[in-house]
């Protein structure tokens, strides 16, 4: 199965990865080879099989709705790229 160049660019946009023309072309070729490998999956009839999402069939645990974390805002913000007055800064999104 081959991906078109537009599909490569579209999926890069969905994944929020900037990609230039040259990279998109190289990626297209490589993904083509990988999806060729992946296409081996199509040979098996899977209509009667239950999907397996997990090695152990577990149910999610519940916990009491109580505070379990202490406030570490300053600690966490000390490693942020850009903060101001306790806020994470990003470019303006609303005019």
């Amino acid at each position, binding site marked *: 199965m081959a991906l078109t160049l537009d599909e490569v660019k579209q999926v890069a946009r969905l994944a929020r990865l900037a990609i230039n023309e040259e990279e998109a072309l190289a990626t297209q070729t490589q993904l083509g080879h990988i999806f060729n490998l992946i296409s081996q999956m199509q040979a098996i009839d899977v209509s009667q099989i239950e*999907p*397996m999402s997990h090695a152990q069939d577990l149910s999610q645990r519940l916990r009491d709705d109580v505070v379990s974390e202490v406030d570490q805002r300053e600690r966490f913000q000390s490693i942020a*790229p850009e903060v101001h007055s306790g806020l994470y800064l990003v470019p303006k999104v609303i005019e």
Partner: protein
Amino acid sequence: MLHASLKTLSQGLASGKYSSVELTQYFLRRIEQLNPTLNSFITVDAQKSLAQASAADAQRAQGRAQPLTGIPIAQKDIFCAKDWLTTCGSKMLSQFISPYDAHVIERFNSAGAVNLGKTNMDEFAMGSSNETSFFGPVRNPWDTERVPGGSSGGSACAVAAGLAPAATGTDTGGSIRQPAAFTGICGLKPTYGLVSRYGMIAFASSLDQGGPMGNSAEDLAMLMPVMAGFDARDSTSLDRPVEDYERDLAKPLSGLRIGLPKEFFAQGTSPEVLNAIEQSIVEYQKLGASIVEVSLPNMALSVPVYYVLAPAEASSNLSRYDGVRYGHRSAQYQTLSELYENSRAEGFGAEVKRRILIGAYVLSHGYYDAYYLRAQKLRRLIAQDFTDAFAHCDVLMGPTSPSTAFKLGEKSNDPVQMYLSDIYTIAVNLAGLPGMSIPCGLDKQGLPIGLQIIGNYFREAQMLNVAHQYQLATDWHQRRSPHFGEALTS
């Protein structure tokens, strides 16, 4: 001290032959001398390690020593360690000082172990050769022109070259077992859910599992109770009591049924590897084991299934790196979209981007059933094959990898060839079973060969017994590269 067992080191500390500070200094010195050649560690912080060592010595003086108190352990740089640079082999996290400890790090700290430093790895654990690390490839101590395997290549190299007595690794598709095989050491990937993933930087959450790497099965048995254990902060952590993994080490192997999956002895595997595996099976027969031929008919599907599921989970897990709260932020942006897209394009390497794109594609609208859902269905078939095989035997054996360590650059431009080299390890992760690799021979070029032992769920103690009995009868696990001996540091 070089390549001494953890038990020997523990006795040396207990008898006062050396202190933890002296032991730690010894390994720090080896790292200082040999790391420029091997590139096994990303971060070494002598001050922090020695402070921990000196606290361990004080603890011992107060009569509060545990088995691992004062023993230096190298930590794969995927485990967050408070106040340590924790990079996961990526430019994205190349400045990330972790504000907290992973569960595994907490456990080693409370066991009194010393964090010897953070080991190099494939970026976000995506690779089989350690060549995708932002910090450059790790060299194989047996031949520095060859890869040490991946993704836990730095940890494997550290143990193999005697830069650390033991190390941690993580295994999503073979990342503990394959580097253990390539460097001639032992590594165990436990049953999925035994070791908490809290603070272990996520790649593919339904497959990722931490485990120990060391010089012998006996050493791994000492490390397992520290690494395993319930942790409410990991929703897939299993609530089971921690076992004594050393309890069965001395058991004789008479009556053991070893299953040999015929798919593990297929064409495409190096004849020298196959020959070494066959020799070790003969050794096991001498030890009283019997052999059963079994089949894992869907094993060939494990590579395509893995390369749908793992990238899908990775694309979701890695969406957190947005250049806003932590991690790399591009200097080039006007809009929020550009901030995301440029930060991620600059922060991730080629292999990580490739897998994010595969994952985003297979999860995208209209393709979910054809790829992700189908892969999950095939995952059940693959897991069922193991259940059927274990009806006839106690453990499965075969090669860990189809070849010995390959040359740097040999496969790095061909992702599909690289992916196929994981053929014997991936199915174990998909099924969530425990698997280990132990050394069982050297090829004509003098490169180590790994024997893979796969157990049923929660049978780690039995697998360690099976490995230990072999190591009592043979000395493959004691063979070490001739290039990095004691002379260098004495």
